[in-house]
């Protein structure tokens, strides 16, 4: 009896919190991995319009982004105020789209290539002319899955 109680008394120190940092670090790494830092800084102003019939873009790696909008104040003097297309981190013209799509395509596994989606992030204030040219170019390069990026409508 005495032996038993003695052993118990010895083995009840404070709960070890030594593994707490490990747990927190695990959470931290999770968030660090999940966080997607925008890889291209925007040179055009993009304020997408609101819509209600939205679908979610599933796999990030299967999506390429095309930004269309008017140049921001920083680039206004150099590039004017008419709507421009931005691919990656630089201004581009419609003719650069096929190469851009091809560059993205080779990074994607072959069996997934049919599911590549182009996300058009278009400013609501842009006229349809440039959007139409880009759509035509996408059709010509056989990139038919397109997602018009939009914000959910707040009721």
């Amino acid at each position, binding site marked *: 009896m005495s032996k038993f109680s003695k052993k118990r008394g010895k083995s009840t120190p404070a709960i070890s919190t030594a593994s707490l*940092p490990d747990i927190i670090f695990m959470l931290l790494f999770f968030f660090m991995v999940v966080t997607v830092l925008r890889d291209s800084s925007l040179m055009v102003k993009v304020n997408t319009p609101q819509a209600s019939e939205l679908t979610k873009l599933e796999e990030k790696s299967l999506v390429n982004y095309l930004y269309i909008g008017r140049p921001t104040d920083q680039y206004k003097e150099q590039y004017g105020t008419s709507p421009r297309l931005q691919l990656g981190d630089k201004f581009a013209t419609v003719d650069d789209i096929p190469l851009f799509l091809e560059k993205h395509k080779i990074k994607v596994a072959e069996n997934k290539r049919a599911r590549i989606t182009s996300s058009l992030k278009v400013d609501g204030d*842009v006229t349809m002319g440039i959007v139409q040219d880009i759509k*035509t170019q*996408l059709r010509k390069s056989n990139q*038919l899955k*397109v997602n*018009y990026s939009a914000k959910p409508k707040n009721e």
Partner: protein
Amino acid sequence: MAKKSSKDRLTNEINAGSMADIAFLLLIFFLVTTTIVQDKGITVKLPPWSEEEVDATKLKTRNVFSVLVNAQNQLLVRDEPANIEQLKDRAKEFIMNPRGQEDLAEKPTKAIISLKNDRGTNYETYLEVYNELKAAYNELWDEEAQSKYGTEYSDKMPREQKKAIKGKIPFVLSEAEPTSFGEEK
């Protein structure tokens, strides 16, 4: 002797209690800076590119629901000026034709929505119109799913059910080459 060894152990142990605080600080920093970007939008399937224009004259006019948007962002629905608020209900009525009217679609499978805009149309207006037309179809699919299967239409539905619904009410939206009256210079 025994006392000394216990003292030794105490000095050798680094206090790791504050480690959690440091990790928490980093965690909170990442929690705050992370904006889980919700990438949402209207998914569209573009038609494959072909050199020749689709000839719309072969279609019966009663089966075509034409929507025109001009450079002033005004709507012309079936040759009459219209409001964007009425667009969804008109499209739904056109597709289903519940009262069997002469001038609306013969049946949902024959209904075609034709959208035409100008190069000077605002993108916001264009997307709003597109959204309304898509909403019309989504609501019809929903009604169909409710009456047939008793559930609301969603991506989680079995594939055959979705196929059956889409076979009955197919989403046909043809976009004509835009006019260029109000092109921005």
